């Protein structure tokens, strides 16, 4: 009779509760506070004189002010992005020279000397090696600069201020203010962002935060945006302005992501996820001098290498797939060309093209390798000679100008670049995030919504932008 074990105790407790009435909880809390205060006062000696001004409070007054809060946020983000763009050029060129100009021909030479079958050489060296080398040289430098800078801001204590500034906007959108924190985590990694929604208690608001986390530009997508903007936007302005222009455009994309987060939260909270907004109090932690070396270490280990490793794991098989679809032919034409031709009309409708869509299909497991895949496929269909060694070979390019030239030869315009950037921002979350969403929500239905809603929004927005662009261009 387990149910009867504590019955007597409970009866006594209930009777006593009637005696004390409703203020028992307050009495208890007050007793604890009184003790805590007394003990703390005995132990702590405060400085005789209050410092004339409190640095933390002064900083907070500025960075969370109505007037300066948002400009400072945008400025901080632009500076971080600008440093990333400016700083990645040199190491990027260096990596190209080593990995692709030097090691790649060397490997080819070895293959020839050893007498490896052409298709093995193709899959391994032209496919797997070049794809991974590409990922390293394109992705590593921006990551190695961006992540430590971002982590320094986090360590310093700036993220809660960002959350504080955005809190009001989220309330207006019918979402929980803490969603600004899970979104801030999403700027690092969407899967981490989805996990961090556990800080939101209300299931309704938690779902909104999970579904919209995708719109926070993540680790895997920052470098793609930076590279795309560098190639297309950077080329439009004089070189001394390029860094600033690229930073502005990438920041604009990130801000668009925040606006979409708010917009979709608003739409969800007024339709399928109706309900009251809960309030919460956010404690602004003290500013702490960032530990530079430790931050460098952890951001390199936790963020840079983790993301790079993930990209490499997915890039290696993708490289093989790209080589195969470029070299296996049906009726004398490679499979890749068939697929690209098939998807091209649809792609053009969205301001994209067939190559980009195929690249997306090949890169479904990891968005990080979209750009290398696009470049490889572009060379294939445009049949540019003298750049690559043959069909499906990722070519050697040691400057962004050359990359731009290839893409323009493949029919890319500024619209294509902008559409791609928008699509990269909006389209579905990566496989890890989708899996995490399933684990967190335990619901197939909401996981499907999380995966498909952004995809259709991506199609819709790029379609709209392309139509308007062409309309304006046509005048």
């Amino acid at each position: 009779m387990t149910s009867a074990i504590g019955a007597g105790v409970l009866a006594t407790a209930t009777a006593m509760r009637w005696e004390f009435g409703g203020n028992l909880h307050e009495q208890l809390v007050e007793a604890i506070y009184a003790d805590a205060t007394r003990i703390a006062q005995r132990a702590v000696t405060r400085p005789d004189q209050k410092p004339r001004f409190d640095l933390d409070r002064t900083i907070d007054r500025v960075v969370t002010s109505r007037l300066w809060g948002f400009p400072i946020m945008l400025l901080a983000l632009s500076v971080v992005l600008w440093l990333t763009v400016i700083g990645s050029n040199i190491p990027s060129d260096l990596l190209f020279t080593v990995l692709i100009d030097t090691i790649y021909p060397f490997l080819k030479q070895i293959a020839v000397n050893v007498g490896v079958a052409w298709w093995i050489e193709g899959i391994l060296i032209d496919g797997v090696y070049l794809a991974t080398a590409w990922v390293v040289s394109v992705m590593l430098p921006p990551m190695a600069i961006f992540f430590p800078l971002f982590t320094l801001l986090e360590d310093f204590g700036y993220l809660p201020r960002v959350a504080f500034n955005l809190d009001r906007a989220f309330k207006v959108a019918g979402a929980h203010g803490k969603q600004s924190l899970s979104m801030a985590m999403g700027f690092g990694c969407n899967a981490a962002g989805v996990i961090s929604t556990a800080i939101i208690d209300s299931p309704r608001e938690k779902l909104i935060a999970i579904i919209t986390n995708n719109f926070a530009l993540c680790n895997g997508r920052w470098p793609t945006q930076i590279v795309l903007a560098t190639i297309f936007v950077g080329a439009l302005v004089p070189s001394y302005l390029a860094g600033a222009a690229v930073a502005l455009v990438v920041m604009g994309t990130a801000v668009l992501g925040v606006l979409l987060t708010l917009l979709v939260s608003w739409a969800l909270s007024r339709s399928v996820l109706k309900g009251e907004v809960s309030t919460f109090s956010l404690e602004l932690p003290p500013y702490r001098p960032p530990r530079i070396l430790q931050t460098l270490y952890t951001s390199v280990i936790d963020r840079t290498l983790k993301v790079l490793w993930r990209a490499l794991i997915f890039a290696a098989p993708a490289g093989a797939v790209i080589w195969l679809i470029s070299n296996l032919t049906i009726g004398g034409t490679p499979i890749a060309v068939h697929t690209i031709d098939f998807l091209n009309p649809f792609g053009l409708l969205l301001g994209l093209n067939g190559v980009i869509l195929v690249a997306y299909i090949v890169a479904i497991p990891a968005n990080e390798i979209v750009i290398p895949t696009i470049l490889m496929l572009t060379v294939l269909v445009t049949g540019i000679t003298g750049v690559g060694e043959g069909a499906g070979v990722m070519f050697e390019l040691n400057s962004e100008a050359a990359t731009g030239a290839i893409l323009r030869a493949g029919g890319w315009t500024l619209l294509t670049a902008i559409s791609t950037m928008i699509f990269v921002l909006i389209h579905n979350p990566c496989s890890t995030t989708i899996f995490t969403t399933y684990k967190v929500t335990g619901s197939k239905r909401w996981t499907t919504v999380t995966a498909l809603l952004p995809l259709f929004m991506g199609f819709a927005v790029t379609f709209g932008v392309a139509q308007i662009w062409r309309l304006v261009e046509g005048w």
Partner: protein
Amino acid sequence: MTIRDLPSSGCVDCPVHLAGNLLKLGVDMKDWDFVVALAGNPNTGKSTVFNALTGLRQHTGNWPGKTVARAEGGYEFGDKRYKLIDLPGTYSLLSTTQDEEIARDFLLFGRPDVTVVVVDANRLERNLNLALQVMEVTDRVVICLNLMDEARRHGLQVDDRRLARDLGVPVVPTSARYGEGLDELVGAIEEVATGQAVCKPHRIEYLSGALKAAVRQLAAEVEARFPGLPNARWVALRLLDGDARMRNVVQSGELGELARQVDIVGDPA
């Protein structure tokens, strides 16, 4: 003296200071001798302490609430293996958010051998509020007086010895971000775990006479019903407060399991 400075030369021979004694085990926790829980207010550096002791890299960040579920890791010190549990930060154990439930259930039913309460030396009053509640749940507590570097920066002097006397449990000043005081912390945990140091934790005073009597009577009844229960007074307080979760475990007799577990530990034969 209020803040412990660098160890004097005499300390160097002390086993506590032999850094080689500490073996970070990461998540490699097959069997362990002691379970240590890390509790504390949000953003006081629990995860930093956790990482420093286990060698793991739980994401730390300067904002409250980033540890959302409990993280586990381990370390070895003086031939003993310790399993360390990083609990989500909470301000109190009295309300019903998800974070608090995780922390509270673990302290009550996970039955840690030692609970380290990480408190922010700069916000001692508010942090002690939680520490006092934890000390109602379990006797074996070590206070990790963290963020001493910030306290120094703000000119605060915190008398850790007086605090230890008032609270009746060991108090170790640390700056976990810079690795200061962690050797002493590991030593204090060992002392409490092995019973070398006996805690006589402070009990909440200032209860009104009637309430005090009620708590005493109900605690006696709880103890009679569940002999060997280590924290009957806390159970009584929670029942008086109308805690639904506590009512359930009393009703179902789950609380008895807790008492039995303690019995087994108390009497290994």
